[in-house]
């Protein structure tokens, strides 16, 4: 049975994709952090680690506060991450994308902070800074700054108090160029 060039190209393309998809499953944690810089690679050949090896055991919370020079610093306010637990979410869950985006940014900031102590220059950190600045965009005071805090709680079965994990730098409410 002979195959035409189009069929051979197709087999080569899908075969290469499958081989790469298999190979990346053996990538170590260190190389995985490097791969994160190439989202197109992770997009086409994902590393499958759903809820493993370590299943999620904590919830992360994002809090923000506003400071205006000459006034007392504002209280910490929680930025809503989850949209509540409703039965219809089994089929339509518009909050899913929002929850996933914020939680991944929080986890990556914490990971970067643990690994490099330079998380403030990372893209997830800038995303979170942009988010908390946008929450206070209506504040028209000069010298107003915002700060965010990452806190973890230990699930509904635990009575342990939440832990504070990360305090951000202060950021001017007014947008900075190229941020």
């Amino acid at each position: 049975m002979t195959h035409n060039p189009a069929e051979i190209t197709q087999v080569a393309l899908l075969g290469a994709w499958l081989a790469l998809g298999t190979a990346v499953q053996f990538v170590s944690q260190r190389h995985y952090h490097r791969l994160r810089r190439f989202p197109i690679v992770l997009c086409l050949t994902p590393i499958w680690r759903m809820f493993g090896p370590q299943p999620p055991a904590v919830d992360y919370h994002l809090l923000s506060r506003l400071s205006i020079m000459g006034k007392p610093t504002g209280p910490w306010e929680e930025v809503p991450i989850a949209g509540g637990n409703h039965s219809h979410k089994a089929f339509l869950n518009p909050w899913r994308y929002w929850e996933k985006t914020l939680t991944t940014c929080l986890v990556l900031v914490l990971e970067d902070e643990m690994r490099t102590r330079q998380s403030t220059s990372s893209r997830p950190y800038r995303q979170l800074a942009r988010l908390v600045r946008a929450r206070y965009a209506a504040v028209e005071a000069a010298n107003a700054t915002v700060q965010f805090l990452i806190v973890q709680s230990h699930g509904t079965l635990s009575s342990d108090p939440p832990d504070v994990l990360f305090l951000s730098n202060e950021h001017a409410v007014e947008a900075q160029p190229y941020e």
Partner: protein
Amino acid sequence: MNDDVQRTLHLVATIAAVGTLVGSVELLSHLRRFLQAGLLGRAERSLEPSRVDVLTYVPLIYASLVSRLGASVVLLWWGGQVSALPCLLIFVSSVHLFLVNPYGQTAAEQFTIILFGGLSVAYASQSEFGRVTALWFIAAQCAICYAANGVHKLRSSVWRGGLAMQTIMATVMFGDRRCANLLARLPKAASFLCWCVIGWEVLFPLALLTPTAGLVFVSIGVAFHLATAVTMRLNNFLWAFPAAYPAVMFCGRQLHA
């Protein structure tokens, strides 16, 4: 062209299209929230745009979402007579949305990209050989995905010790308080469930070998994804992974023909 091949491709495309339709509606309904929060898109191009800056141009994001929605409707409505175009459109728009916001992507979105990559190649192919190859590609990707997940769980003492389900269910993000309490009261059942998940995932590649094995693994898979949709609100997994199941079943049938 073999009817079985055509029917299987049609079924894969239809189930996957339900998932992309739901996903597009979900993201469109929350897009304003993302834009206001500055998490997605740029109102204007910056002076020195990088490649990512160009991709985050807001009208382009809207165009991507709307075209994905439209292509999903085309696949659902005219599924039997489609060409590669709607599949390719969903593939390209899904890759675009991934690059715009990689942090918002779950494994289901990543698997959807693989599915529509395979489907685009299948529908572009004029020969039965090409389409069968694409079905094997989709089935193999599904098997690798489950097996890799199972092996990572097997490495974990929390999973082996039977505490993983209870731990996950106790979180607000993925869990359900009632399930967490129930599993805490029934540790042996919790441990059994953990081992069921590990066993099913690690052994999933066997589903490709015979129609009977395929039916067993696929049936468990549908029940599993339905359960995670209800208890963990992973609704997109309910469409993305079961979309590959007709391809898995096809492989078993072909090996035994």
